[in-house]
């Protein structure tokens, strides 16, 4: 692994400030932290208490006083680590950060927010010091993550692993900054190569690499063969496919952005891959081409001809999360029958821009066309907890001519409206002759009633379960209703009794 040559202190201090920004910190917090970083960078003003600080404030608080957002701390909240010397080794520095994190957790659990905030500021300063003190911090962190037997295996981010992940991300950002400032690009390229090489070690390492590289500017032409190698591994089911697709798309985006490949050249490559056998390459090719209006019809046509509906759905999900929402809705509409029902893709769109999905629904409602798509649009915006979603659901229940859409509106209202409104909607649907003409929709009303299990009172559940019991339910639907009644209406007939009425 490549190591950076030592650099002068001014550069280190500037790096420290940049790195904190690179770890996706809120701008206001970054502003507050900059003063701390300068004070806490070891060579500038080692960790001795600040002489100019008020006697009843800790050094960190004194430094933070320069920034308006910084809290004023009581004396007892002073983080003790400020008086300790800088860590001698990388492992000690990581261990110190973990210890500070644990102290921060303890402060937070005690609702001592000022102390927790100060402790967290100290952690940020120590992190910056670690990066400044170890020019090969990224390589060291990567080695330790790979060597760990089961990093992140328990789902909970352990302090040490989290610190090491942060170091990997920050190392990429540091070297990218150096390259952007006119420095050599080789250190960044070498480190990115190291990250790519480490990614197949485990799903957890793949996730670490994805966090550092996907949707980031670091992947460039020099990494093309390594990325394609991972795509190949994904094709052999030895690497997470969504990560491989994300890396390939990021690489293409960066190549185009930096002029290393023209838009036309990348489009030509994507067109070649469009009919390939590798799922990651095909998905990436589709998403890449769908960004450009001139290729959209071509890709939609290819997807329509695809017999693999699961693949079409995968592309639809990529489209829903990556394209501008209006464009995504257009592509989803164009895919039509090839896509079939795709509520997930519409839900992703609804999460991103509920108003755009609501507008799309209202247009279709006004024209009274594409009822299947209207179902997905109501699901997409209605399941998002928002006034827009509720408004669309109420409109759909009152005015949509499709009983399937009205049922979907009931799902949305029982999910997000207040219990009285939701129960009224459900009973209205139960009286809807057209809606209840199909047994599957009657069962659907039972499912929707389940959303109210924890909110509605026993009397309301009693009334609703009796009303639904009179509908033409399937045997499974009736059993589910009876079980629901048993749980929510004390002392009422059990499953067998309800089913026999």
């Amino acid at each position, binding site marked *: 692994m490549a190591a950076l040559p030592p650099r002068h202190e001014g550069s280190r201090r500037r790096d420290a400030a940049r790195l904190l920004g690179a*770890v996706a*910190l*809120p701008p206001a*917090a970054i502003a507050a*932290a900059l003063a701390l970083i300068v004070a806490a960078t070891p060579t500038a003003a080692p960790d001795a208490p600040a002489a100019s600080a008020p006697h009843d404030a800790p050094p960190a608080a004194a430094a933070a006083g320069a920034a308006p957002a910084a809290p004023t701390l009581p004396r007892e909240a002073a983080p003790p680590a400020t008086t300790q010397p800088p860590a001698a080794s990388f492992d000690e520095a990581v261990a110190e950060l973990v210890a500070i*994190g644990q102290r*921060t*957790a303890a402060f*937070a*659990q005690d609702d001592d927010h000022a102390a*927790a*905030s100060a402790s*967290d*500021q100290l*952690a*940020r300063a120590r992190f910056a010091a670690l990066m400044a003190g170890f020019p090969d911090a990224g390589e060291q962190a990567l080695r330790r993550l790979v060597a760990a037997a089961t990093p*992140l295996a*328990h*789902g*909970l*981010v352990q*302090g040490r692993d*989290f610190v090491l*992940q*942060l170091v990997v991300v920050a190392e990429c950002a540091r070297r990218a900054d150096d390259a952007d400032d006119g420095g050599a690009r080789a250190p960044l390229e070498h480190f990115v190569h190291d990250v790519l090489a480490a990614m197949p070690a485990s*799903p*957890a390492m*793949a*996730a*670490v690499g994805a*966090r550092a590289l996907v949707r980031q500017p670091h992947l460039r032409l020099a990494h093309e063969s390594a990325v394609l190698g991972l795509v190949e591994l994904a094709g052999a089911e030895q690497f997470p496919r969504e990560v491989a697709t994300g890396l390939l798309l990021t690489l293409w985006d960066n190549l185009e952005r930096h002029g290393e490949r023209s838009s036309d050249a990348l489009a030509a490559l994507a067109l070649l891959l469009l009919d390939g056998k590798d799922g990651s390459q095909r998905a990436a090719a589709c998403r890449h081409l769908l960004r450009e209006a001139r290729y959209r019809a071509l890709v939609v046509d290819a997807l329509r001809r695809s017999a693999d509906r699961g693949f079409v*759905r995968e592309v639809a*999900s990529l489209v829903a*999360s990556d394209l501008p929402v209006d464009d995504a809705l257009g592509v989803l509409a164009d895919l039509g029958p090839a896509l*079939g029902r795709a*509520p*997930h893709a519409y*839900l*992703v769109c609804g*999460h991103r821009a509920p108003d755009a999905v609501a507008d799309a629904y209202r247009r279709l409602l006004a024209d009274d066309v594409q009822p299947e798509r209207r179902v997905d649009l109501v*699901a997409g915006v209605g*399941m998002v907890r928002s006034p827009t979603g509720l408004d669309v659901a109420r409109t759909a229940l009152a005015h949509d001519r499709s009983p399937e859409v009205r*049922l*979907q509106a009931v*799902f*949305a209202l*029982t*999910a997000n409206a207040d219990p009285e409104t939701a129960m009224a909607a459900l009973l209205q649907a139960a009286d809807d002759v057209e809606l209840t003409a199909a*047994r*599957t*929709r009657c*069962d*659907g009303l039972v*499912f*929707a009633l389940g*959303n109210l299990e924890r909110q509605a009172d026993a009397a309301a559940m009693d009334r609703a379960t009796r009303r639904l019991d009179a509908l033409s339910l*399937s*045997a*499974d*639907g009736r059993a589910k209703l009876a079980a629901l009644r048993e749980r929510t209406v004390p002392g009422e007939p059990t499953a067998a009794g309800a089913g026999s009425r």
Partner: protein
Amino acid sequence: MPIRLVTASCLALLFAAAAAAQKSCPRTRAERIAGSEQYGPSASCSGLVFSGHGIKLSTATGCPLFVTLIPEHHDVVPSESATRVEPMGAREGRILFFTCQTDYLIVIPWGSVCVFERDLAWGSYPVLATLPCEGQ
């Protein structure tokens, strides 16, 4: 009534019934759609480990804001045989919401955990049977 007339009438009725049955047969069948789970947008967080609804969900890092569960169900598709579909019931699609909880969300989420928030029914998916058209 002459026997020939009765026979002719019976035959005519038989053919008419068969023709009607032929005409009303939709020639459709139920196609099985496998159940699926899809992850929504992810928040920066620790990974998810979740068991419930007969499934296990996990991510190495990142907390999906929601996961949609579509049950195994059926679609109606054209059939080359004289068959039709009959609804047998429905299965529910569910949506599971997750949230990232941090022990001390100040600036760096040092210790974060992706936790289950709530789950909801959000769709009804048909269970269909393929039956021969009557009279075929």
